């Protein structure tokens, strides 16, 4: 567009933007081609009054489809179980079979939700079936024990609570964890009352948390979008968030924090819409929800505070109802004060924990901008490259989300009543901000977090933050894509092909999200892999850790690699050495080719009793990028450690070799470290 036309557009403020387009086209005179492009662009972006005809009529209540969808999900879970077992015996089709099972669960749900003449109860039932079906895949993937690294960190905290009967016991693997014990409190309550293991109790709680999250999310969307169809589609697209299917079902504090976040947000929306007496009671329940969230996860609690401040500001700017503003102001103050107060109560551990994470992320992003670093896309730290179909699916998923955001961004703003997005040029400054639906404006703005999360995920240091931004950014992505789907694809149409198209798009987004999170390592493989969490945790390592508890007793001080450290801490109930705790990396002693005064000094400073040497470390590069915790020992290694380095203690006086299973050896080094 030329500068002249831009100037005319600015001069014409006060008229209808569609009229502007016409004026601009007229002014262009014979340049009708340019005007058509401009008009097409505006139409494509949805800068026009929102078409409410997509709000479907009420359909008769029926649960026939959910029955079929539930049975279909059960059959798909059988395929998933067969795939998981096939992976353990090295069948090539296993991974693709598992991904197909995800698609089989999801496709019919998407299809039904995309149709306009489906009743609210069926939509809710279908969403809950999809949530439970996908949760079943998490159980099928790891049916015997925890396999995620972070799960072991929280398990240690849970065991400490059960054993000591107190919160806040130290956890050297995860120093900040005990300060946020919400997840562990509920799991240990179930375990204490039922006698079930922490693993079983965690699965029970996580399944309930999943239903709670999806249910609350649906109600939030329904409350702000005013339509069961839009709300259910928004939930459907939210499930495409890379953390939804597996990461947020791990035994990790985010998995409970997100449902509590949704609960607090839902109560907050009730506060906004509250008319009449009883507001203090509602705010009390809100405070309770925020307190439990603050006790569960720091970042999620602060994210809620930021969101509620944003909502209050938008409501104030738009001149919303005074009663609503008062309620929102009180809620925003509570959302800031309670997490801050809790953080102060537990000694502000978040600063030391989160500070370096943000610093590293910022540093890596700056380097990425200068093209001097970055993660190699679709390539693991051990050099393994994702198959072509997975790369294609991930890129298609990102592409479809971006396309949906482009198509839905202005449509969502128009839906929220923002004048400029409705094609109405504002007459006064106050009318610029004259929207009617602040929550939708806020969620639409949240979608800017999606490209940011993608950029952060391209860096090594920022990957973690990018991963954490995803669940919040997708709150906006869900509703924007839902509005895009219901408007661009002729919402009132009952065409099964259109519904199938929306369902296919949602499924590609979901599967692409899961691939970007789990990739080719979604299942436990047939063969052990070095430092690969799920592919490294297996019965022999568990048996060795259990042996230490039985024959050496608990709370000996062990040095071990990343994976065995987790097993020793949980199954073995040993104290393990970490660089974070001691400032020294005991792994350095294990991988050093020679044992000299420096190594003796480390052993003595850290106070090591036993070294757990796993000879399998010598067989490959670490899949997650580190054999130990990324400190000195890992910096010493450019190739797998040598067996003779790990076994150098065989020839040293005063060292006992107390355990040998052919793969792992335990050395008693108390004579060297001065612990005896």
């Amino acid at each position, binding site marked *: 567009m030329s500068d002249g036309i831009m100037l005319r557009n600015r001069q014409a403020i006060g008229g209808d933007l569609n009229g502007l387009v016409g004026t601009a086209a007229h002014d262009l005179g014979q340049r009708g081609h340019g005007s058509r492009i401009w008009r097409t662009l505006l139409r494509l972006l949805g800068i026009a009054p929102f078409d409410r005809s997509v709000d479907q009529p009420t359909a008769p209540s029926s649960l026939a489809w959910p*029955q079929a969808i539930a049975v279909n999900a059960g059959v798909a879970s059988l395929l998933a179980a067969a795939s998981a077992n096939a992976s353990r015996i090295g069948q090539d089709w296993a991974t693709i079979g598992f991904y197909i099972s995800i698609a089989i669960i999801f496709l019919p749900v998407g299809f039904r939700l995309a149709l306009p003449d489906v009743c609210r109860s069926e939509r809710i039932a279908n969403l809950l079936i999809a949530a439970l079906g996908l949760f079943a895949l998490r159980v099928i993937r790891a049916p015997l024990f925890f396999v995620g690294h972070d799960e072991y960190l929280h398990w240690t905290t849970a065991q400490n609570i059960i054993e000591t009967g107190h919160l806040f016991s130290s956890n050297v693997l995860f120093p900040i964890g005990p300060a946020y014990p919400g997840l562990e409190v509920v799991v240990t*309550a179930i375990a204490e*009352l039922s006698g079930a293991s922490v693993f079983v109790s965690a699965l029970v709680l996580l399944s309930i948390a999943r239903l709670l999250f999806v249910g609350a999310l649906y109600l939030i969307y329904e409350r702000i979008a005013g339509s069961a169809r839009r709300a259910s589609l928004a939930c459907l697209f939210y499930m495409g968030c890379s953390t939804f299917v597996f990461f947020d079902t791990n035994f990790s504090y985010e998995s409970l924090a997100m449902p509590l976040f949704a609960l607090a947000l839902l109560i907050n929306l009730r506060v906004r819409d509250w008319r009449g007496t009883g507001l203090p009671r509602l705010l009390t329940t809100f405070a309770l929800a925020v307190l439990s969230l603050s006790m569960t996860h720091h970042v999620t609690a602060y994210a809620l505070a930021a969101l509620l401040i944003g909502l209050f500001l938008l409501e104030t700017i738009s001149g919303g109802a005074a009663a609503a503003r008062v309620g929102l102001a009180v809620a925003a103050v509570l959302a800031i004060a309670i997490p801050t107060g809790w953080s102060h109560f537990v000694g502000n551990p978040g600063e030391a924990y989160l500070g370096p994470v943000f610093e590293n992320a910022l540093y890596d992003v700056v380097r990425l901008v200068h093209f001097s670093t970055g993660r190699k896309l679709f390539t693991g730290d051990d050099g393994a490259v994702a198959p072509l179909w997975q790369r294609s699916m991930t890129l298609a998923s990102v592409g479809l989300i971006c396309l949906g955001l482009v198509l839905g961004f202005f449509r969502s703003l128009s839906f929220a009543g923002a004048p400029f997005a409705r094609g109405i040029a504002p007459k006064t400054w106050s009318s610029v901000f004259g929207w009617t639906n602040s929550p939708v404006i806020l969620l639409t703005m949240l979608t800017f977090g999606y490209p940011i999360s993608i950029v952060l995920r391209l860096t090594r240091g920022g990957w973690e933050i990018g991963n954490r931004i995803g669940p919040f950014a997708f709150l906006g992505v869900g509703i924007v894509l839902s509005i895009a789907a219901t408007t661009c694809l002729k919402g009132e149409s009952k065409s099964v092909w259109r519904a199938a198209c929306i369902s296919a798009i949602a499924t590609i987004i979901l599967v692409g999200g899961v691939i970007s999170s789990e990739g080719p390592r979604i299942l436990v493989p047939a063969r052990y892999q070095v430092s690969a969490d799920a592919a490294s945790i297996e019965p*022999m390592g568990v048996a060795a850790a259990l042996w230490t508890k039985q024959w050496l007793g608990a709370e000996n001080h062990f040095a071990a690699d990343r994976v065995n450290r987790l097993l020793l801490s949980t199954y073995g109930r040993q104290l393990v050495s970490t660089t974070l705790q001691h400032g020294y990396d005991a792994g350095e002693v294990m991988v050093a080719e020679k044992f000299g005064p420096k190594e003796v000094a480390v052993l003595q400073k850290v106070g090591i009793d036993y070294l757990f040497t796993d000879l399998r470390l010598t067989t490959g590069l670490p899949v997650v990028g580190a054999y130990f915790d990324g400190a000195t020992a890992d910096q010493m290694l450019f190739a797998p450690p040598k067996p003779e380095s790990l076994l150098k203690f065989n020839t040293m006086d005063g*060292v006992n070799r107390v355990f040998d299973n052919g793969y792992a050896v335990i050395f008693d080094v108390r*004579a060297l470290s001065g612990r*005896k």
Partner: protein
Amino acid sequence: VAANSIKRAACAATVLVWGLCWLTPTPEPLKIVVIIPLLLLLPGLVVIRGALRKKAMNFEFLILAIGMSVALTIVLGLVLHGLNALNSGGWGAAISALLAVAIWRWLFAKDASRKEERLSPFAVAGNRRLAACSGVAAALFAGSIALAHYGADNHRQFAYSELWMVPSEGADSNTISVGVRNDEQKATNYDLEVLVDNKVFVRWPEFRLENDEQWTRELPIPLAIRHSRHVEARLYNRDQPLRIYRRVWLSRDEVASQ
């Protein structure tokens, strides 16, 4: 009157089930089925009913009740921690108190009509076709999890034998413990010898262990060898009798300290 009788009977049954579940050795799955609604639904129902003044049960009420129950449980954990009662007894007492409050509120609620109290799951249970489909789906899910469990349980990449030697603890401290555990996924024949300063002190020729079987011996250390340099255990697999299969040892200091 009939509705009140049903209410009282339901309350009595709930208290009875909870009491039996808490105080008697009930199977874990059954305990979970009883405890989950008491811990993760009931407290929230009481709070949300009070906060929203809502009488009718709907989806939003249910979700808010579950969410508030989770939130209350977390806060309750903090309270129990402060009272030094964060254990099964403390949780049991807390659940009992919550149950008492819930029953009291329910029994004496004036505004609750029977129709409004009726939960949709009861209606759902009355639909035979729906119940059958739900049953089939649940069976399929349970079957798939059982299948995955079976596959994971039988996935043994490593066939191995453990050998260990540690100083015995307790009253009889003049002994060391030697142990072997067979996880070769088959019955295996072993030879085990214990050497003191590289001389055979004791030997257990050809003993057989079934898979997952463990063998341990307490080995008294005679006073005469207590100051020896080195006590070593060597395990031989009879399939490769000439090769030391596993070895462990205790050095002089360890033995001398006994």
